[in-house]
């Protein structure tokens, strides 16, 4: 990678040098052309002076004319032949135009090259930085559950624990593994979404069935964290989307809600839906930790974990809401969030395109 970067920078430098050289050549040719005309004019001036002197000395005009063919010599007058003067000026103008066109074209081509190479370099640098940042963040996200897992295992290996403590540690380790599994899934999803490598269908999806299926997977965890999940979705509501995307969106939004409620010692998550003509709105409300209005813009960013410390880091990768937003965008929907402030719960509104009857 470093070698190719060095090559690109070298090419860029060469093109810049070529552009400078071309510009200098253009300037130099212009100067030389002007100088050449001036020296020719000087030569003709000297020839005229000589011809005039010879005329004054009584040399016949015809002889002088033969000596200086570029001059027009009459009995009492010596001047540069008008066709020569016109030719000289024409030549100078022609040469200048040629230099301007040729030099200008090369200069343009070189500047275009510089622009293209520079833009490519910038894009590559940005992509490399993003990749590095992504890797750093991903590895950081994994280190915490790994550390927890290692700690639990080493605790079991180091100490003689009663059966119930061992059981508790095993449960903790299983949760850590689930957490890492969730992370892997989310990282893969977000990577595919970032690079637009996800092929999404557009078909009628029964919202009630999709929500019920996801909710059933989280009931046990919700019960452990003293959270009640209520779902009131009219049976006939159908959204126009990709069934897998709907599943992922509901799953991630529910994960987020549970993670927000768990730290406050339990509470409620409600899912309701209604038809808004061309759209179907799914509202997910929770009685959790909420967020500040100033943090709203960060909610859907990759790796933003506003409430990481409040317990959501059990499962939080900072990718869930990013995935929700990207999937909603790609399936023609949108998502928005609101909260009355810290400790006052939050509401996420998902707008799916409705199926036209």
């Amino acid at each position: 990678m470093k070698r190719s970067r060095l090559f690109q920078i070298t090419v860029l430098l060469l093109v810049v040098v070529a552009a400078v050289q071309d510009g200098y050549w253009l300037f130099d040719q212009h100067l030389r052309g002007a100088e050449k005309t001036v020296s020719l004019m000087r030569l003709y001036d000297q020839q005229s002076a000589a011809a005039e002197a010879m005329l004054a000395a009584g040399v016949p005009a015809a002889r002088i004319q033969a000596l200086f063919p570029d001059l027009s010599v009459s009995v009492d007058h010596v001047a540069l032949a008008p066709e020569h003067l016109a030719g000289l000026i024409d030549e100078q103008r022609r040469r200048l135009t040629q230099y301007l066109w040729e030099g200008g074209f090369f200069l343009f081509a070189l500047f275009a090259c510089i622009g293209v190479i520079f833009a490519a370099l910038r894009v590559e640098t940005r992509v490399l930085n993003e990749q590095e940042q992504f890797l750093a963040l991903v590895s950081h996200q994994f280190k915490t559950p790994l550390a927890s897992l290692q700690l639990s295992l080493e605790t079991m290996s180091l100490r003689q624990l009663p059966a119930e403590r061992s059981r508790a540690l095993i449960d903790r380790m299983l949760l850590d593994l689930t957490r890492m599994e969730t992370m892997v899934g989310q990282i893969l999803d977000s990577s595919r979404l970032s690079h637009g490598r996800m092929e999404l269908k557009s078909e009628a999806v029964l919202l009630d069935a999709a929500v019920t299926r996801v909710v059933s997977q989280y009931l046990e965890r919700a019960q452990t964290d003293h959270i009640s999940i209520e779902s009131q979705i009219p049976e006939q509501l159908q959204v126009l989307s990709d069934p897998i995307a709907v599943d992922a969106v509901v799953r991630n939004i529910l994960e987020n809600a549970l993670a927000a409620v768990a730290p406050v010692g339990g509470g409620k998550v409600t899912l309701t839906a209604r038809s808004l003509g061309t759209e179907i709105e799914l509202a997910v409300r929770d009685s959790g930790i909420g967020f500040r209005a100033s943090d709203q813009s960060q909610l859907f960013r990759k790796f933003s974990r506003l409430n990481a410390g409040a317990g959501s880091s059990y499962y939080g990768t900072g990718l869930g809401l990013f995935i929700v937003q990207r999937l909603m965008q790609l399936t023609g929907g949108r998502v928005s969030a609101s909260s009355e402030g810290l400790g006052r719960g939050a509401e996420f509104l998902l707008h799916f395109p409705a199926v036209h009857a």
Partner: protein
Amino acid sequence: MSEPLYRVMVVEDDPHLAAGVVENLRAEGYEADSVGDGRKAVEWFESHSCDLIILDVMLPGMDGFAVCSTLRERGTTTPVLFLTARGDAVDRIRGLEAGGDDYLAKPFHLQEFLLRVRAILRRWDWYRESARTQGSDVLRFAGNEVDFRAFRGRSWNGEAQELTEKEAMILKVLAEKPGEIVSREDLLEKVWGYDVFPSTRTVDNFILRLRKRFERDPATPVHFLTVWGVGYRFMSGEES
């Protein structure tokens, strides 16, 4: 446990890790508690104290470096062990500059963690004990004065000096053996205990800081003398 009961505060946002660390510390006989937010940790220290802080770096509310700096600015000298997923050299140095005593990268080995905890507490015990028992907790030399308990001092020109705990500990180690050579390795072992710094140059920097505080002419020191290739010698000025 035969060791005295130490109180350890764990500042860690991951509940599993915090619980695991607290449980293990308790199993070792320490009194341990945890808090999961940087700001809450700073608030907690306004009305409480402990013998050791285990501090995560990436914390909500306020990051670990800021927590450590804030506590140090407020005069809290409690030793800090950084425990974090960010384990590169830059972060380690940042942590130590913020006033940390040691640094352990996640994931870590439980026994190593417990050993480090024990080592930090032992070093502080040594410092506190020696400050209390060896006649006086105040060192006076050539018009300078250092109170090892308060981490304060006054230099020969009457200027008040606020010492960092590391400066105080280094001075303590040197002053315990006036006129004798103390190697850089000995200083590192006694003051830091582990290979948390990349080189013994760090000790040299602390010595420079001590010279600036207490020497009349730091360029030609008479109290903190370098013994080339070995270490340092402290001369109170009353040896002869």
